């Protein structure tokens, strides 16, 4: 066993090493989990005053856990890998603040969220909880209570949200792996703005038990990492049914790792046209074109009524989100982030027929989009219309119309999560001045297809997580 006091493996750059590399080194005894975790804690201390990605650092817990890994009590595919979670995941001993002021008055959680338990059972080490937009109603990474998260590639720019710290912590090299949530794009937007790989699995694939909800019929949890292999490693460790989440599907674990390197031969891949080109900034169009060329995806496909799907997702989100928070709006409206409060109050006032119409449309749209997957295995679309705006920027111009930034960053992610399709966000290289990602979208329960394509793009040198100059 390596000495816990020994510094990291001399030739291992733990600040940018992948989860896969760390776990292999820890398992082989070339480095201790303790040394890896100490390195992560030191980086958090050094860099997070600028990035503001962590809201809670769990140094004592992480050290104790790492010592257990080093003592051989836990062995697994993620041995010694430090990770952190958006602060809407229950973490034993912490109130689940969900980016809010109000929730931090809740009592300490009695248990960890099950995905934390599953990652730790595979040898990973939780080092903290991460900043997020209040109650996950956010695409920017701005938060009046905990301060804004800052993009590691340019601290004056947004990380994207609402899994803001989940993006900043991994892109900034603080940890190789984080967990976030995605209701309308909150994993894919930070992946795009921070230059990361992010997996939003099929709705119902990963348990959401013991996480603070936002929109029950749209909420997903998933990982962010700096490589496809790391996403797959974490995803395989987290799969499986959970009776505690009624939405979590009763499906066996379907490991993706064995198929990851199978390549893309035989896969039918098309590029989303129409809505997904309209409004895209040149950098988003370039990204799509480069990925399509690398995959020889010469076919364009129209996702029917995508604009209406986005509109319906918007309405359902506002209404369900407001229903969740109605009592808090009545009693504590002044304690919300104003940008969130005003949207939730408006959401509470949406007449029920509008919400029912959106749900009826949702069923129709799901049926129509699933027909596309009889003809193709995957669809490519931009993740965001642009690279990260400046923190505080209020508007941008999409398709010639000046629109508010906050609700419109997710125009390309919302029509996809609306019907629960699995998506991998893949970041482009070389990046424009700031990172940008595209979405690789697959049929329900075919995360393996999206991950295979992402891995092939990474191997071809078309996609990678760019390292910031920190």
């Amino acid at each position, binding site marked *: 066993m390596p000495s816990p006091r020994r510094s990291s493996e001399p030739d291992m750059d733990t600040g940018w090493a992948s989860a896969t590399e760390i776990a292999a080194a820890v398992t082989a005894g070339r480095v201790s989990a303790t040394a890896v975790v100490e390195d992560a804690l030191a980086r958090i201390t050094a860099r997070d005053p600028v990035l503001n990605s962590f809201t809670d650092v769990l140094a004592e817990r992480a050290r104790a856990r790492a010592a257990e890994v080093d003592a051989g009590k836990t062995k697994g595919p993620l041995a010694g890998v430090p990770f952190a979670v958006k602060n809407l995941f229950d973490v034993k001993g912490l109130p689940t603040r969900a980016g809010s002021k109000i929730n931090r008055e809740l009592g300490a959680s009695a248990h960890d969220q099950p995905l934390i338990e599953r990652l730790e059972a595979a040898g990973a080490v939780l080092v903290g909880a991460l900043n997020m937009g209040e109650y996950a109603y956010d695409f920017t990474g701005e938060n009046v209570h905990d301060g804004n998260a800052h993009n590691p590639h340019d601290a004056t720019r947004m990380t994207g949200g609402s899994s803001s710290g989940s993006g900043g912590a991994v892109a900034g090299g603080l940890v190789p792996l984080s967990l976030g949530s995605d209701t309308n794009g909150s994993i894919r937007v930070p992946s795009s703005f921070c230059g990361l790989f992010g997996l939003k699995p*099929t*709705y*119902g694939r990963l348990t959401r038990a013991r996480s603070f909800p936002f929109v029950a*019929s*749209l909420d997903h949890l998933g990982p962010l990492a700096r490589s496809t292999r790391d996403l797959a490693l974490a995803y395989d460790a987290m799969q499986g049914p959970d009776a505690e989440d009624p939405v979590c599907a009763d499906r066996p674990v379907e490991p993706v790792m064995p198929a990851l390197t199978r390549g893309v031969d035989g896969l039918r891949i098309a590029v989303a046209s129409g809505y997904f080109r309209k409004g895209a900034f040149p950098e988003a169009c370039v990204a799509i074109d480069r990925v399509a060329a690398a995959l020889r995806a010469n076919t364009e496909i129209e996702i029917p*009524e995508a*604009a*209406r799907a986005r*509109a*319906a997702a*918007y*309405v359902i989100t*506002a209404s369900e989100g407001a229903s969740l928070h*109605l009592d808090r*709006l*009545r009693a504590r*409206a*002044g304690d919300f982030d*104003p*940008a969130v*409060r*005003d*949207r939730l*109050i*408006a*959401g*509470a*006032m*949406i007449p029920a027929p*509008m919400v*029912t*119409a*959106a*749900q*009826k*449309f*949702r*069923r*129709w749209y*799901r049926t129509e989009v699933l027909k596309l997957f009889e003809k193709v295995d995957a669809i490519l679309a931009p993740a965001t219309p642009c690279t990260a705006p400046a923190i505080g920027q209020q508007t941008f111009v999409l398709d010639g119309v000046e629109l508010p930034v906050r*609700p419109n960053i997710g125009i390309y992610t919302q029509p996809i999560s609306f*019907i*629960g*399709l699995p998506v991998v966000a893949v970041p482009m290289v070389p990046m424009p001045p700031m990172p940008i990602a595209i979405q690789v979208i697959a049929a*329900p*329960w075919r995360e393996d297809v999206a991950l295979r394509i992402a891995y092939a793009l990474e191997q071809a040198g078309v996609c990678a997580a760019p390292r910031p100059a920190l």
Partner: protein
Amino acid sequence: MPDHLDAYIDAAAQALGIPVQPEWKPAVRANLDVTFRLAAAVGDKELPDDAEPAPVFRA
């Protein structure tokens, strides 16, 4: 609806018991205006009366 939004917001706030401060109203109004426009776009899609809604969603 937009012409009547201010009155609607006042009435809805009272009915729902949400204390909307005067300085919050412009932003609430702007959000509600966008939401109603998007909801109208959804409503413009013709679907049969027996189209099944998806309140319990499955991927």
